[in-house]
Structure formats: C-alpha cells, structure tokens
C-alpha cells in the first residue's frame, strides 16, 4: 500500500514554523496523471460544470500563503460579510479579538468557550468577544469578555494564559477599517502589522493607501516583516531573498485581496499577447454579465545592489530594470484596457548606491506621456539604516 519512502537523514531543513510563500505558478505533476489517448479525460465531470465554477476564481484565500496570512484573508472576508449585515450598526463597538490556533477545538475546550459552527456568513456578532478560530475562520468558539476597553481586554486575555498565541484584532470604531496582526500574541503588543480591509471602492488614492501601508507596515525593514514578510536574506549586507519580486508580488496579491475584498479580483501573472501582467485589479461590470472592468495593471520591479547569491548588480542593470518595467507597464495597461497603469519600484539598494527616486527620472517623461504612474518604495536592510535615513546618523 505504501508508495513512498524518504531518506531518514533529510531532517531539520529550514523549518521556521511558517511555510515559505510559494510563487503561484501551476505545480507540475510528479508524473503524468492521464493516458495521452484517454477518450474521456474528464471522467464523471463535464466541461459545463467546470465552466460554471471557474468564474469564482479569486473569491477564496490564497492557500499558498503561511497560515497566519490565510487567517488574515479569511477574517477580512468574515468582517466584510458582517459589516454588510443589517445588525452591524447595533452590535457592540468593542474590539473583536481572534486567537488563531491550529488546535482551536482543544484550546476552546480549555477555556469553556461556546461553539459557533458558522463564523464567516455575517450572521454572528463578532465584536466584544474573544474568538478562538483556525486559520480558515469558517467556524470558531467565543468567550464574552468582562472588559470593554482595549487595554482591559488585552489584560484579560493575557490572564487567561493565551496572550502568547498569535492574534488578530479588529476595532469597529476605527476610522479606517483594518486588521491588526500580533504574530507573537497580545503579550507582545508592540509587534504588530496592520492590514487595511473593506476599501469600499477602487480609486487610485485607495490603491496608494494600501500600497503605502504595505510598504510601511510589512517590508520597510526586516523588523517590520516580523519574520513572515521579510524580503531580505541578509539585510545587513543588503542581500535580498531568492525570487524577491515574486515574493513581493505574492504578498501584494494577498494584501490587495484583503483590502478590496470580494467585489474585486486580484489576478496574478495574467497572461496576454504582450507578456504577463504582474498584478491586475478588476471587478465585475455592473451590467454586462461575465465582463470585468480592469481598474489597474501593476508592474513590479526590484532595484538591488546584490543578487540573492551575493553577486554584484551593476547600475546599468538597475537602469534597464526601470526602463523595461515602464515598457511592461505601458504594454499591460493597454493589453488589459486598465484604467490605471503603475510601475512600482521596490528599492533594495545598499546605502552606497542609493540616490532616492532619482533613478526613476529618465523614465518620467515617457511615463507621463503614457499615463503610467511611477511609485518608489525604499526598503532598508536594517532598522538602524532606516533610523539613520529618517533622523540622521548618531555622529
């Protein structure tokens, strides 16, 4: 019965507690799964059935992400569903706190929490409660907290002995809806990432807000990454991780999905005659069925001083990257008939090579003529470099 054995010596290979974010390319099968001359390769399925569900692509969380990021995506959906429920305005205005566990049943039993078999359809009151849930946030368990203020609720949870488990917090009173992610639990409330949610309508300003928050909250320094969104292999030496562009692309896809919700679709590496568009934000046409309106085509470029292997990258290569990126942004905007086209440069150059956004100057005239918006985001290899850039050196 057993078909597989693996060598016993393959131990402890880079297990960090989080799965790496995989580049979302179709995985190749280990071997062919169907005979080449198979007359009916769909078996009991029909193309009509498959076609009917294919249009739902993008409605579900990205499963390639670490479980914590799956949880953020799923919770954003659950909150969005709740915010559209008729009872939303009457609900408690206190925090909703979600403890994310891969053993929710067992943890809930130890806290005598109540079961909520359906959590993501908007019917449940979320706020004013402590929730124990798995990363899929499809069901959960809740306790009513005695405290009503954020500090008191955090303290109460810490006293329950679960302040060291990763948590997500939603504040219904916040001006801009967001999920706060505490990867090391509420005990470590200084280690937090914020994710915008429930952006009601796409505008270039709302997109910029999400992009800026992603930059400042998730990737601006290795410390901001909190171990899960760190784009560096060795930040101190300005050596990026492998496949940096794909890594940032996968993160951004998730962040944009969380922010813009189910009304919008974030396509990844969308194929076309002129190449693959890195990210495309679109929504259903209001009247024409099966038609999508493309709001923005994003081309991402990473500017770097070193490869992930530590090899030097010349300034010519960086200049070419910006020029190529601009051409791609122009092509994809046209190809997708997108209302907006953006070239987003993530600048990972070492301080000695860094010249601010000057590197984009040669591309600006052509970008302006073609209505492409240029964006420049500086990534620091260390928090010390970030502080130096913001406050000056300590000398």
């Amino acid at each position: 019965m057993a078909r597989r054995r693996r060598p016993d010596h393959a131990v402890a290979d880079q297990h960090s507690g989080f799965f790496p974010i995989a580049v979302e390319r179709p995985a190749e099968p280990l071997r062919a799964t169907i005979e080449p001359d198979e007359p009916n390769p769909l078996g009991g399925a029909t193309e009509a059935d498959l076609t009917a569900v294919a249009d739902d692509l993008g409605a579900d969380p990205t499963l390639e992400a670490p479980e914590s990021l799956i949880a953020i995506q799923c919770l954003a959906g659950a909150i969005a569903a709740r915010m559209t429920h008729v009872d939303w305005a009457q609900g408690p205005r206190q925090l909703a706190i979600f403890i994310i566990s891969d053993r929710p049943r067992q943890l809930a039993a130890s806290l005598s929490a109540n079961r909520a078999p359906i959590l993501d359809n908007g019917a449940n009151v979320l706020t004013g409660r402590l929730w124990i849930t798995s990363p899929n946030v499809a069901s959960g368990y809740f306790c009513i907290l005695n405290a009503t203020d954020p500090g008191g609720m955090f303290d109460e949870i810490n006293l329950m002995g679960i302040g060291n488990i990763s948590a997500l917090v939603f504040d219904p009173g916040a001006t801009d809806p967001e999920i706060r992610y505490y990867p090391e639990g509420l005990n470590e409330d200084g280690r937090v990432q914020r994710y915008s949610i429930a952006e009601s309508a796409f505008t270039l300003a709302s997109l910029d807000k999400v992009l800026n928050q992603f930059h400042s909250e998730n990737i601006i320094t290795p410390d901001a990454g909190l171990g899960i969104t760190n784009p560096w292999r060795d930040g101190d030496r300005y050596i990026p991780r492998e496949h940096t562009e794909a890594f940032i692309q996968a993160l951004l896809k998730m962040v944009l999905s969380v922010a813009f919700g189910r009304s919008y679709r974030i396509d990844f590496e969308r194929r076309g005659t002129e190449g693959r568009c890195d990210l495309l934000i679109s929504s259903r046409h209001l009247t024409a069925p099966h038609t999508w309106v493309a709001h923005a085509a994003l081309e991402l470029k990473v500017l770097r001083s070193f490869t992930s292997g530590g090899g030097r990258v010349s300034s010519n290569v960086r200049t070419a990257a910006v020029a190529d990126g601009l051409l791609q942004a122009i092509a994809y905007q046209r190809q997708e008939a997108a209302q907006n086209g953006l070239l987003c440069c993530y600048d990972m150059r070492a301080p000695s090579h860094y010249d601010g956004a000057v590197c984009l100057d040669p591309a600006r005239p052509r970008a302006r003529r073609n209505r492409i918006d240029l964006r420049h985001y500086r990534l620091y290899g260390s928090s010390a470099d970030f502080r130096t850039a913001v406050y000056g050196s300590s000398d």
Partner: protein
Amino acid sequence: MISEAAACRWQPDRLRLLLLLDACEAADLAPVPVLRLHALAFLSNVLSPIWSVESYDGKILKRRGGPFYPELQKQLDRLVGLGLVAVHDVRYVEEEGKWRIEAKFSLMSGMADTIISDAQLFMDERSVSEFFRRLAFSISRIREPLEDLVKFDATWSDARTGVGDVIDFAEWRRANYSVFAARVFENLSAKGATIGRGDKLHLYMRFLERKWPGAAVRITR
C-alpha cells in the same frame, strides 16, 4: 505504549492518518465522522498531484456508500488503541440492511502532537502536511457533507467503473480524472488568469458542491 507510538513515525499508514487528523484539527473539522475521514483520504489521494505530492494509494474499491479504505480503518483503530486518536459519539447505523459502527475521530493531544511535530522536520512529511491542511481548509469552506460530495468526484463518478469494481487511477493505470478536471480550470478561467494550486483546490471543491442537488454556493461575490 511510548515505544509503539515511536514506531508509528516509521509506519507510513499511521503517520499519514495522523497528518490527516492534524489537518482536520487545524481546519476545525474534528471530531471527523468516519466516512468523512475516508472521503478526505480519497480526495487527498486523487488531488495530491496538484500539490506535487504523490498519491499514497492509487486505487480504491468503488462502494455504493462512497470511499472506504479497510486498511486505513484498521490502522485508525490501532491508533485508538495506542492512545493517539480519540473516539467520539460511537453508535450503530443501518446501511442497506447491514449494521455498521459510526463514530467520530480526533487527535489526542500530547503524544500525537509530538509525533506530528517530529514528522514535520522531514521535507516530504512537511509537504504532505501542508497539502493536507490546505485541502482541509478548502473543504471547510463548503457547506455540504464531504462524504456526500465526494461521490461527484470526477474519478469516483466516472461511469466506466461500476460499483464493486476497482478504480485504478494511479496504480497500474493513469486515469486520475480529478486532477485533469482541476487543470481544466486553467483554460476556463477569465482570459489569461494564472491559476495557482490553491485556486485549483478551491475551485474543485466548488465544483463538487455545485454537483450536489440543491446545494447553495456558500460564498458568492
């Protein structure tokens, strides 16, 4: 008992079962009814190539009641005896004039967690565990019971194999229609959209749910 539990690490059948139950716990599907667990095991076998994981068992007897692996059940009972798996809600149910035991199963915390944690030090087991959890997450988003939906699986429901025959999808034949159907989504999605392996799992579950008579799609745009 500890030595037997340690031996479990090197018994692929049992480790696979523990990882399946771990996925059920992680997706809050536990305690899982026995037929649902067998349905999950079947889907993990037919859909594993999507995640570049090898099918553990490439064949199954086509029963009217749905997927059931006698050997897996034997190992499950053994894990209960070892104190690694807990049984809940044991009862008898009548099925086509015969009585069988129905029960739900979950991991016993403690020793089972230690074995799973140790297994995840190995790359292969970690890949399998990651796939099982992602499969369980996608299943947790559908409304209908998996043991009913699985009968609409493209491989299981292929009319060329009758009840009482063996479905050989990856043992001697290459006849995994489920993976082929999941790959078809690449051609059917909106123009040029790239479909990841997670998307395929989600869409395949939506396909199964759609086939269920009267099923409501849980998540609509």
